[in-house]
C-alpha cells in the first residue's frame, strides 16, 4: 500500500504544481457560486445573491416550478456544458502530458526499476490523473448540493451521480491519450488522438440518433414511404448502432444525470418542459422524442463506455508491461 499511496501522493503534487489545475478549479468554484447566487423571492428570481431581481409569475418562491427550474439549470446546462465539455477539455490539456513526461528517459527508469509491478504502477498513475477531474467535480457538486438545499430545500444526493458519470466520461477520452502516449510518448499526438476519438464518438452517436429518428419517428413516415432503392431504415439504424456501440459516449453519459435526479419522483427536465409548454412557453416534447432519449438503457450507455475504457486501458497496460525503456 505504501507504494500505491506514494504514486497517488506524487500525482497530487503534480496536479497542484500545475497552474491550469488552479485556474480550472477557480473557474469551477466561480461557476458553482454563480449557480448558488441564483435564488427565489415571492415575485420571481433573484440573481447574484439578491443584487438583481427578475420578476416572474410562474417561477418564484411560491411555485413548485422553482425547484424544477433550479435543478434543470444544474442537470441540463451546468453538468453537460461546464463539467461535460469545458472542464473535460481543460482537464485533458492538464493531464495529457503526465504519461509522456513519465515515459521520458531518466524518469521512467527510476520508477520501473523499483519492486513494484508495472501494472500497479501504470494503473495507479492513471487513477492519480482521474483525481484531477474527481476533485473538481466533487467540489462543484458539493457547492451545488448546498445551494440546492438552501435555495429550494432539495437535499438531493442523486446529484453526486455526476462524479462517477463524469469520471467515466473523462476516462473514456483520457484512456485514448494514454494509449497513444505509451506508443508514441508524444504529448501533442496523444491530445490530438484523444480529441479526434472524442469527435468520432460524437459523430457516430449522432449518426445513430439520426438513423433511429429516420427509422422510427412517425413524422418520417412520408419520407420513408417515398424512399426508392430498397434501403431498409431499420437495418441502417442497426448498422450505425453497431458501429457506435464501442465508442465513448460522453454526451449521453452526462445526459444520464437527468434521469437520475428527480424531484418528488418526477424527472426534472420533462416535468418543467411539459408545464411550460402548457402555458405556451417552449415546445412540448413529443412522445417520440421522449422515447428516443431513452432508447438506450443506462446499463447500455454505462456498460459500453466502461467496456471501451477497459479494452483501451487494458491494451495500454499490456503494451506498457512489455515495453523496453
Amino acid at each position, binding site marked *: 500500500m505504501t507504494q500505491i499511496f506514494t504514486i497517488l501522493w506524487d500525482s497530487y503534487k503534480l496536479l497542484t504544481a500545475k497552474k491550469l489545475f488552479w485556474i480550472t478549479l477557480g473557474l469551477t468554484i466561480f461557476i458553482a457560486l454563480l449557480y448558488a447566487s441564483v435564488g427565489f423571492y415571492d415575485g420571481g428570481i433573484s440573481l447574484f445573491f439578491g443584487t438583481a431581481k427578475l420578476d416572474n409569475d410562474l417561477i418564484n418562491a411560491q411555485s413548485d416550478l422553482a425547484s424544477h427550474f433550479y435543478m434543470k439549470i444544474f442537470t441540463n446546462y451546468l453538468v453537460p456544458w461546464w463539467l461535460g465539455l469545458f472542464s473535460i477539455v481543460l482537464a485533458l490539456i492538464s493531464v495529457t502530458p503526465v504519461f509522456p513526461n513519465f515515459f521520458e528517459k531518466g524518469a*521512467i527508469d*527510476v520508477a520501473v526499476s523499483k519492486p*513494484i509491478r508495472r501494472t500497479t504502477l501504470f494503473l495507479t498513475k492513471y487513477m492519480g490523473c482521474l483525481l484531477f477531474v474527481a476533485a473538481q467535480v466533487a467540489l462543484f457538486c458539493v457547492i451545488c448540493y448546498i445551494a440546492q438545499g438552501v435555495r429550494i430545500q432539495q437535499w438531493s444526493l442523486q446529484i453526486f451521480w455526476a462524479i462517477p458519470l463524469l469520471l467515466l466520461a473523462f476516462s473514456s477520452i483520457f484512456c485514448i491519450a494514454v494509449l497513444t502516449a505509451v506508443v508514441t510518448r508524444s504529448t501533442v499526438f496523444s491530445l490530438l488522438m484523444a480529441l479526434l476519438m472524442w469527435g468520432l464518438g460524437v459523430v457516430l452517436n449522432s449518426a445513430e440518433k439520426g438513423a433511429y429518428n429516420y427509422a422510427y419517428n412517425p413524422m418520417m413516415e412520408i419520407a420513408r414511404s417515398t424512399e426508392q432503392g430498397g434501403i431498409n431504415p431499420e437495418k441502417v439504424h442497426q448498422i450505425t448502432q453497431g458501429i457506435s456501440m464501442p465508442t465513448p459516449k460522453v454526451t449521453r453519459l452526462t445526459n444520464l444525470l437527468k434521469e437520475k435526479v428527480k424531484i418528488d419522483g418526477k424527472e426534472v427536465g420533462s416535468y418543467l418542459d411539459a408545464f411550460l409548454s402548457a402555458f405556451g412557453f417552449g415546445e412540448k416534447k413529443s412522445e417520440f422524442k421522449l422515447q428516443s432519449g431513452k432508447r438506450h438503457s443506462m446499463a447500455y450507455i454505462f456498460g459500453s463506455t466502461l467496456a471501451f475504457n477497459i479494452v483501451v486501458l487494458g491494451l495500454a497496460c499490456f503494451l506498457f508491461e512489455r515495453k523496453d525503456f
Partner: protein
Amino acid sequence: MSQHVIDIQNTWKTYRGGVQALRGVTLQVPQGQIFGFLGPNGAGKSTLVKILTSIVKPSQCEGTMLGERIGHKKTLSKVGYLPEHASFPEYLKGREVVRYVAGLCGTSKSLSRVKADELLELVGMSDWADKKMGSYSKGMKQRIGIAQALVNDPEIVFLDEPTDGVDPRGRKEMRDVLVKMREQGRTVFVNSHLLGELEMICDSIAIMDRGELVTQGTIADLTAKSQRIEIGYLGQLSSDLMTKLSAMGGEHSAQTITIYQKQISEIQSIIDTLRAGAVVISRVEEVRQNLEDLFISSVSATGVGGTQN
C-alpha cells in the same frame, strides 16, 4: 548464494528493428566491490544494466542477481539505481524525491524520513533539501540521484555515469561516497567514461564492445600482461652487448631496454651485464598499462564503436 552478486550467462538482447545490443554476454560481479563497467558508446552497457534492473526485457538471459533470476521484482528492493541523464520531477523538492523513491521501494513513511535526512547529509545536500528540483544545478541533481539510489539500503547500487555534470570537487566527494558504500559492504556497479576516476576506486572491471564482453577481471590482473621493466641508458650499446641482452629477453629501442613480465629481482643479471659493459644506466622503471591504455587496446582489437543501444 555465491560470492558473485551478479552471475549471468548467455545474455542476448535484440531490439525491435533487429538492432542487436547484446550478444551472449557472460558476466560475474564479485560481492562488496566497486565494479567498473566500461565500453564505447553503443557497446551495450546501459542495455545490460537496464536488463538487470528490469527496465528492458532480455531476449535471452540465464543466471541470477542476488541469488534470484533476472527480472525478479522483489529482488529489486535490494537494488539501487541512478540512470544516465536521470530526470526527477521538477515540482518535487530534493527531500521529496528521495522520499518518493523510498515509497516506491515500499519503505515506511517514518523510516524514509530518517533515511532521507541521512542521505541528504551524505551527499551534501542538506541545505538545499527543501528547494524544488527545478532550481538545482546538474551536479546537485546528480547528488540527489545518488541519495535516492541508496534510500532502500541496497546490496547492489547501479550508477550510470554518476559524475556526469559534477564539478571536480564534487567528483572527489562522489568517489568518497562510493568508497564508503564499499566499506558498508555494498556492491557498486559503475558505468562511466571517466577511466581515470574508475581506476582510482575500482576493484575490478569489465569492458564491453559491440554487445560482447571483451575482458573482465581485476585491474591488476588485466594489466599484468602489459607489465614490463624499462631500463634507460646513456650512450651507445655495442652490437656484442645487444646480442647478449637479446638472449637474456631484453628488447632494445631508443636508449631503452624493455623486459616483459619479469620481476625486478629477475633482471639483476641484465643490469650487471650493462654495468660490465660500462653503460651508464639513467633509470630502471617498472611500467604497467593504465586503464585507458587497457580500454583502448581492448576495444581496438574489436574495432571501436558498436551497435546502437
